[in-house]
């Protein structure tokens, strides 16, 4: 008996507006000063009226289009009624049956080596308001909970995926791809510590008692996962738990209602949460305080035009323009926009995208991580690295020497008395270390002849078919002609040896 894991994610993203969704209060994250960003509207005082923030709607639409969603020509807002201390009105303004967008997808790579992709459906993306923040007494003495309503009314985009994910690692991939897109679009900062991106996971199993048979286990929603790592761990734990539970009880979906669980990161386990009473009975109805929104094709086209290049489009362009591997395209684009722009400046500057990709994905990325530097802080500018790579491509220095120059530049630039990494410094280092490739083939030929004469055994080995014998000769030639290009030397040695045959 085996099983398939079925996962769907609900992601809440705070949009990067200046103000809340229905009032002019600032939507800045401000936990140090509770309750200073409220007004009658977001406090739900009688007589106040919500008015839709145009920017919030535009950002939401931009995101939905980038998620390949269809935009509804007609949309409205509904009241979702429930009582909770962080919800001052006693209802949340959300979208029920006519969300502004639906039916999109996100593509993820589920097997990096094989390059297998999965298209994860987006059921809908809708615009709603955030609740405030409850702070619980942790003394164990049952003191009052404290409520900060600064966040109440912050615009939230809820993105609901189809249950298309088949492993905890896929859920993480999906979230990373989603975050990358949102950050590229500039619609959210996706700061999980500040709660700008939150995730709930719906998980169950399709058990196959016999091949071709399918029994679904009861649905579980894991709430308020606050890091991608925790999403992955919580789902992994939940899968194990549901499988054990099914083997013990045999309970199927429909035998029990959907349950809500929390994630205890310390214990590494999900736990049952007491369900909100009548939680499912939200009694949605259209909010009479807000009028519907209609969207024309022209407006959709205008927003679409403002999207710019999405991460998938950029990866694709790198593959087409520079002939980069799928893997390199991902490494570069997934580092977020400024890193990709760093790469592009060098690729364009030196004219060799593959060479540029090798350097930025290996040398630059490694040193950035080791030294905990962002691209902006990295002391070797695209212009300097371009200069260095141009010298490599013109065969003026070897790749090995270029790496030496690169490290020298970096060490000097991050020293206590830093020496800025400039194009002039590149020339200086090459000069002082004698790293310039000797182009004078005459001098090299003389050195090769001398080495061949002194090494009859290596010559005999070569004649006997041992190509490896050339290696020993290269080293000796290089010692005599400092700065020669080893690949060139190798070629010339083989030529001379062949002439002897």
């Amino acid at each position, binding site marked *: 008996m085996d099983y398939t894991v079925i996962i769907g994610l609900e992601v809440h993203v705070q949009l990067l507006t200046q103000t809340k969704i229905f009032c002019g209060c600032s939507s800045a994250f401000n936990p140090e000063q509770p*309750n200073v960003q409220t007004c009658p509207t977001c406090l739900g005082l009688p007589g106040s009226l919500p008015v839709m923030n145009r920017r919030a709607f535009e950002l939401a639409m931009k995101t939905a289009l980038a998620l390949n969603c269809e935009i509804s020509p007609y949309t409205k807002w509904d009241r979702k009624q429930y009582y909770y201390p962080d919800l001052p009105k006693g209802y949340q303004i959300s979208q029920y049956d006519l969300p502004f967008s639906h039916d999109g997808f996100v593509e993820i790579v589920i097997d990096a080596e094989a390059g297998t992709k999965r298209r994860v459906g987006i059921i809908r993306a809708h615009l709603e308001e955030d609740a405030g923040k409850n702070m619980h007494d942790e003394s164990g003495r049952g003191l009052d909970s404290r409520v900060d309503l600064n966040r109440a009314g912050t615009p939230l985009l809820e993105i609901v995926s189809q249950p298309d994910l088949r492993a905890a690692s896929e859920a993480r991939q999906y979230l990373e791809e989603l975050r990358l897109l949102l950050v590229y679009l500039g619609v959210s900062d996706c700061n999980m510590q500040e709660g700008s991106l939150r995730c709930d996971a719906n998980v169950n199993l399709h058990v196959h008692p016999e091949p071709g048979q399918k029994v679904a286990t009861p649905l579980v929603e894991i709430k308020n996962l606050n890091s991608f790592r925790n999403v992955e761990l919580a789902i992994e734990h939940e899968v194990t738990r549901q499988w054990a539970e099914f083997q013990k009880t045999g309970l199927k979906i429909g035998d029990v209602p959907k349950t809500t669980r929390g994630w205890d990161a310390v214990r590494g386990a999900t736990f049952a949460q007491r369900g909100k009473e009548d939680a499912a009975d939200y009694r949605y109805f259209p909010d009479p305080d807000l009028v*519907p929104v209609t969207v024309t094709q022209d407006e959709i086209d205008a927003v679409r035009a403002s999207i710019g290049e999405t991460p998938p489009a950029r990866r694709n362009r790198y593959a087409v323009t520079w002939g980069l591997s799928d893997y390199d395209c991902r490494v570069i684009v997934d580092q977020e926009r400024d890193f990709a722009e760093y790469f592009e400046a060098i690729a364009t500057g030196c004219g060799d995208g593959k060479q540029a990709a090798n350097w930025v994905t290996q040398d630059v990325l490694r040193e950035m991580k080791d030294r905990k530097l962002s691209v902006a802080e990295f002391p070797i500018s695209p212009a300097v690295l371009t200069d260095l790579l141009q010298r490599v491509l013109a065969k003026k220095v070897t790749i090995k020497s270029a790496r030496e120059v690169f490290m020298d530049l970096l060490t000097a630039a991050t020293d206590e008395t830093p020496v800025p990494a400039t194009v002039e410094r590149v020339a200086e280092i090459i000069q002082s270390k004698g790293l310039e490739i000797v182009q004078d083939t005459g001098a090299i030929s003389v050195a090769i002849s001398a080495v061949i004469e002194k090494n009859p055994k290596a010559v005999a080995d070569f004649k006997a078919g041992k190509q490896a014998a050339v290696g020993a000769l290269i080293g000796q030639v290089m010692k005599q002609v400092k700065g020669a290009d080893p690949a060139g030397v190798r070629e010339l040695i083989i030529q001379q040896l062949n002439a002897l045959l």
Partner: protein
Amino acid sequence: MADSLDRQPLSRETVVKVARLARLKLTPAEIDDYVGKLGQVLGYVEMLDEVDVTDIEPMVHAIELRNVFRADEVLPSLSRTDALKNAPKTDGVCFLVPQILDGGGSSA
């Protein structure tokens, strides 16, 4: 009052459920009272069922206005003192409510 004959009377269970959802504590006598009174209100509204709405698009709003937006510009908020003024209980910084038991930092 157009109390159509085929209308189901409002059940006690429905009244109890609605009261619970609205956080109202009703005595058995009050429940009986509302079964009758709410039932009458519903019966009155059900007169609308007599209107033929075949081929009429459902409307979600009584006024014909569309696309009312505001610019994303910060306006002054209330002072904290004013924001907390009407709350039954505060500590001068936050609203205070009886301890929330089911964990969770936020409901949305």
